[in-house]
């Protein structure tokens, strides 16, 4: 920031007076000389080349027009268009400095010009909040994936200015609201009765494996008889020459498991050329191609299936395999059972001889299409620690909707694609001649429920069956749906006839009511967090408004009864009450919504889903591991929040919050099971803090290789509060280096040859180099390699580098220490994000004082995360509209 000027005229009472003089971004005067040397010569008052005059341009960028002019200058320099080739070129270092400052100043200018002046725009509920609000109101979980995704312009999904509304969406709210009401009433009418279905795994398991084996053997026998007959024909004198040629041409070059076409299937596709050879069909086979595939299956799977039959405990359960073996067990909720929360329960054991990282089961769902054997949505993995002697029970809760798919699947945890599954099988086959030994055994798999909704459901049943009853229940529902604000009589007047029309059409009272109630759920009073404001200036929020702002901040959900009662009594504003409520809310499980919603967006975790991880290079980083890695970020933040620990534990910490799966992944001993918990780290561990988390490291790559650039930029953006400007358009592409055996570092250093690249990359890249000891899936490594055809080069990782104009570090640990010392810049980054998320507007220059005040207060308690929240909630800004 030292060379960029930002003049802030912010008075002390800024929170009350958002109309304080606008700050202005200004390019440092020291660049005047550069400008004069390379631009003004052609673009001046007399000589306006390209009709452009630059001698009079202001270095203060205070208007949109001026920002556009500077943007053009930046673009022309970046694209190499200016200065023209035949003119004197600036030396690289000077150009780099100029580009660096200009790009940075423009970012500030855009921020200042786009500053909403502290105004909080009214906003609708985002997808998460809508889902949670329906859940708290009606006690049902609905699938909101049909609603358009929120945000997208780089802000949080709580920022009103980027949450839009359209006719399509209003119709979707009507449909979704109706679906939720259907389910609500179905559950309200539900008897106490619970239902249960159990799958005994051995029934289908043995059946499938017996069939498999019989099919293989029979097929092989048919194939052998056919081949013998073909061989007979080959012996005929008129065929001898042809047969010899065929034998030569189908000689097996290798046992390459990926190319079944060449695996010892003599004559197979050429049998017809041999005179007198019989057709495969006459031996009960299909055509030659089908017969060939069948024979290949025999080659690959006979041993695997035969071994399976020798496994223990097949009379009481089934082992789960790969490929075409018995690989998944299913259980389904009957279509007639009511919707609700159900328990999935399974009795399982692990094969002690299997590697630890394979002793996990995975729960998920296929699609309703029985032909689709590839799609599998993973819910999560569960560690199996028990053995056959004493199998264990695993339980989890799932939601069954009115029209959701009701079948659940259980399998061994594995990379989530059919290609990967087959690839892994073949890799194993190539080495051992059979598939991998099964790792998990299932006795049975059951589903039971429904159980009560997680929180009590208020029932919206009319007290009387007549018009008044209808009117009363609609009013009661709307007031609750509007979070304590009463609807207008006119609104209710228009809703009552909707129910009446349905009754006249023959609907039951309950069905008829769903019509007006679903309209309530598509009305602005429900969909918008509306806080009237006067043009005269900011005003204080009333009780219910404050309750909503608080609950949508910390729960992404509506206020509960306790908050609403305090709000109605006018007590919520009292500092002691407010503090106690914030503590209560943080302790509540609903605060997990804040943690995940905030952390996901703040840290940019969506990038984790941008690519598939290469299953050969990163076998263990499958969908379950990815989900656990993401959960580690949330659980760590939640632990710090609930245990009142300091923010800088997110940079360096002597403990991690992990489960058994991640402990295996990180190579930490003595942690097993699915629950996340605090685990102390051994001395010298690279884990502990965001930089050592698999999720963060995996985002800094492409699923195959690491990207020091992504990682470096992420650290600058999130930890060091020095975000690089957005990737500029039209910068000439680097010299093409891809096929050359360069180390990752050599490759990236090429970035710094050109000033257009160097201006940012000199800051970004060194940090990325410091993290090179982590591979693309976040595992620790000490060497890296390049491989292209026959060219292979291996080199030890060198994580030493130096910050641009800053300290040098010799390895990852020193890099982390340097970043940890800068806890204040991290606090700033966190605070700005928190303000934006909580207030629902982009962090602006009008918020600078607020951010400082929050950090100062948190600092009094060692930057405890909870204090940041208390400070923000008790700030003036949080109480104002």
């Amino acid at each position: 920031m030292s060379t960029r000027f930002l003049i802030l005229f912010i008075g002390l009472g800024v929170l009350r007076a958002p109309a304080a003089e606008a700050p202005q971004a200004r390019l440092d005067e020291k660049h005047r000389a550069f400008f004069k040397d390379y631009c003004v010569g052609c673009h001046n008052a007399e000589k306006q080349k390209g009709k452009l005059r630059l001698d009079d341009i202001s270095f203060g960028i205070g208007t949109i027009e001026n920002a556009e002019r500077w943007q053009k200058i930046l673009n022309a320099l970046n694209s190499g268009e200016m200065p023209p080739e035949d003119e004197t070129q600036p030396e690289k270092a000077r150009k780099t400095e100029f580009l660096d400052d200009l790009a940075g100043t423009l970012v500030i200018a855009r921020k200042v010009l786009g500053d909403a002046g502290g105004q909080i725009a009214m906003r609708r509920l985002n997808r998460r909040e809508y889902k949670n609000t329906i859940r708290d109101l009606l006690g049902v979980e609905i699938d909101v994936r049909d609603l358009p995704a929120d945000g997208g312009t780089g802000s949080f999904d709580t920022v009103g200015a980027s949450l839009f509304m359209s006719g399509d969406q209003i119709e979707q709210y009507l449909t979704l609201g109706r679906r939720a009401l259907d389910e609500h009433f179905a559950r309200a009418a539900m008897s106490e009765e619970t239902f249960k279905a159990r799958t005994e795994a051995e029934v289908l398991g043995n059946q499938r494996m017996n069939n498999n084996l019989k099919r293989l053997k029979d097929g092989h026998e048919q194939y052998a008889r056919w081949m013998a007959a073909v061989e007979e024909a080959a012996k005929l004198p008129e065929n001898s020459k042809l047969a010899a040629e065929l034998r030569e041409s189908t000689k097996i070059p290798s046992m390459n498991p990926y190319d079944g076409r060449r695996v010892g299937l003599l004559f197979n596709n050429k049998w017809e050329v041999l005179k007198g050879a019989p057709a495969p069909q006459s031996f009960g086979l299909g055509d030659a191609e089908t017969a060939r595939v069948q024979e290949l299956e025999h080659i690959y799977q006979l041993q695997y299936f035969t071994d399976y039959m020798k496994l223990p405990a097949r009379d009481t359960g089934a082992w789960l395999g790969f490929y075409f073996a018995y690989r998944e067990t299913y259980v389904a909720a009957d279509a007639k059972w009511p919707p609700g929360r159900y328990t999935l329960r399974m009795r399982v054991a692990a094969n002690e001889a299997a590697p630890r990282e394979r002793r996990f089961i995975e729960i998920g769902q296929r699609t309703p299409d029985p032909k689709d054997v590839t799609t599998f949505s993973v819910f999560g993995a569960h560690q199996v620690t028990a053995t056959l002697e004493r199998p264990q029970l695993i339980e989890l809760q799932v939601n069954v909707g009115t029209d959701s798919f009701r079948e659940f699947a259980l399998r061994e945890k594995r990379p989530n694609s059919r290609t990967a599954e087959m690839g892994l099988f073949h890799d194993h086959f190539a080495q051992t001649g059979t598939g991998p030994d099964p790792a998990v055994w299932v006795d049975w798999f059951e589903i039971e429920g429904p159980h009560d909704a997680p929180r009590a459901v208020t029932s919206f049943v009319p007290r009387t069956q007549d018009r008044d009853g209808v009117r009363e229940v609609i009013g009661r529902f709307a007031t609750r749906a509007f979070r304590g604000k009463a609807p207008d009589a006119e609104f209710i007047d228009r809703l009552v006839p909707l129910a009446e029309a349905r009754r006249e059409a023959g609907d039951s009272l309950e069905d008829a009511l769903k019509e007006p109630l679903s309209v309530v759920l598509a009305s602005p009073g429900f969909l918008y967090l509306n806080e009237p404001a006067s043009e005269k200036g900011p005003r204080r929020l009333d009780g219910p408004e404050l309750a909503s702002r608080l609950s949508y901040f910390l729960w992404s959900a509506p206020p509960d009864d306790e908050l609403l009662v305090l709000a109605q009594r006018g007590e919520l504003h009292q500092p002691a009450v407010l503090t106690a409520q914030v503590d209560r809310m943080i302790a509540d499980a609903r605060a997990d919504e804040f943690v995940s919603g905030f952390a996901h967006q703040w840290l940019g975790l969506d990038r984790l889903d941008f690519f598939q991880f290469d299953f050969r290079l990163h076998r263990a980083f499958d969908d379950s591991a990815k989900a656990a890695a993401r959960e580690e970020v949330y659980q760590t933040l939640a632990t710090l929040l609930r245990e009142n620990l300091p923010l800088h534990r997110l940079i360096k910490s002597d403990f991690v919050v992990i489960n058994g799966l991640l402990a295996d992944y990180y190579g930490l001993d003595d942690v097993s099971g699915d629950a996340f918990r605090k685990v102390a780290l051994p001395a010298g561990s690279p884990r502990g803090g965001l930089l050592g988390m698999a999720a963060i490291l995996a985002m800094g790559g492409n699923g195959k290789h690491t990207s020091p650039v992504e990682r470096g930029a992420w650290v600058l953006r999130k930890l060091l509060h020095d975000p690089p400007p957005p990737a500029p358009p039209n910068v000439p592409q680097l010299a093409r280096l891809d096929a050359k055996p360069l180390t990752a570092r050599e490759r990236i250093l090429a970035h710094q040859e050109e000033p257009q690249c160097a201006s940012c990359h000199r800051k970004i890249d060194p940090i990325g180099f410091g993290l090179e000891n982590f591979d693309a899936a976040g595992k620790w490594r000490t060497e890296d390699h390049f491989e292209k055809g026959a060219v292979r080069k291996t080199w030890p990782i060198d994580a030493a580098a130096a910050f641009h104009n800053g300290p040098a570090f010799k390895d990852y640990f020193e890099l982390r220490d340097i970043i940890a010392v800068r806890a204040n810049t991290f606090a700033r980054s966190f605070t700005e994000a928190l303000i934006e998320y909580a207030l629902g507007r982009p962090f602006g220059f009008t918020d600078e004082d607020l951010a400082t005040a929050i950090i100062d207060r948190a600092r009094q308690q060692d930057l405890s995360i909870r204090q940041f929240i208390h400070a923000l909630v008790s700030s003036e800004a949080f109480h104002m509209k």
Partner: protein
Amino acid sequence: MKSSPLTRRHFLKTAGTVVALPALESIGFRRFASAAPLMARPKRAVFLGFGWGVTEESWYPDAKVTGADYKLPPGLAPLARHQRDFTLVQGLTNKFANEAHWGSTFWLTGANRFAEPGQSFHNTISADQVAAEALGKDTRFTSIQLGSPDAVGNGHGPGLSLAWDRRGKPMAALDNPVLAYHRLFSDETMPLEQRQAVLAQKRSVLDAVRADAKRVQRGLNKTDTDKLDEYFQGVRDIETRLSKDEQWLNVPKPKVPLAEPKPGLAGRDEIALMYDLIVAALQTDATRVITYRQPVGSLLSSLDLKIAAHDMSHYTTGDRLEASQKRDVAQSTLFAGLLDKLKAVKEPDGTSLFDHTALAYGSNIRTSHYLDNCPTILAGGGASVRLGQHLVLPRNTPLCDAWLTMLHGLDIPAERHGDSTGVVKELQA
């Protein structure tokens, strides 16, 4: 279905396809149901956007060889049979575009993201919506926006489709072919009176939510009033749609020679199917304006290319360049197939659907992070564009000049569009 005068339809047998037209006496067809001159066939417009640009070395023809006799580079080779029927334009740019990963957000609008003080995002109406205001009056659907569930990380940038409405707000897309198929072609099974009752009920619903919106509106400041105005506008949009539904109540949706699509298609098959739906929608005159924001990442997966779309866009020699080029060829092949189909559908006057459709095919991103010389192909006879040429315009000619030219060709006398400076004379036949 029971045959009544209202539902009787006229079947035309052409080129081996059975085409059913809505009742000729129905609204919208009156115009050309009588002995209308050939010129009166309705004009249609289709915009196809493909996010992450192209491989510039192998997609653009040699800029020195312009006119009709230019050589198609490998990236466009699959389009060879149509070379006389499209024009490739070089030199077009959206001058305000600065976002290196946003290939679609401003592609059809030419807007300046930062034009609005106090806002960090701003957009304006897209060219397709300008066209829809004029061309969409007489069809069941004013316009149709198609998209893909695979949109994130595909180089499209913010937005829900290629389309932005009159107020610069994003318009939703039908993101999956099955949904699009049913919206366009599936008939309500409900009897007529019941459907009329449903329409009446829907109107009452809108009146009710509007009543609540008025309550919420009380005491809002200007910003919030603007925000809530999106809701009011949404209600008005539904009303407009209901009025159209009412006009079309008696007209069954057209039968199309397409089976209900299989769910779960992704990438190449998904695009091919969406193209089929586009042809069917135009052929049956369900709509005359369509945009399609195409998937890129799933296209790569479906070509068995294991590389993330963004990485591919930053191709260097090797795998990434190869993937980028395969992507070009796959996209060109699909596009060529679309042109084949449009040519194969004959109109009642003997011309083809292609002759009356204006197609624009491109992206705001050229390649990698380059936003100038946007890849642009114009095809079809709908906008009277001079086809069959390779046109190299002066550098940084506004892309919106091309959209304005298209709009004029579609008989829409817009004065300007986005940052346009005038029509491109060389494009006018």
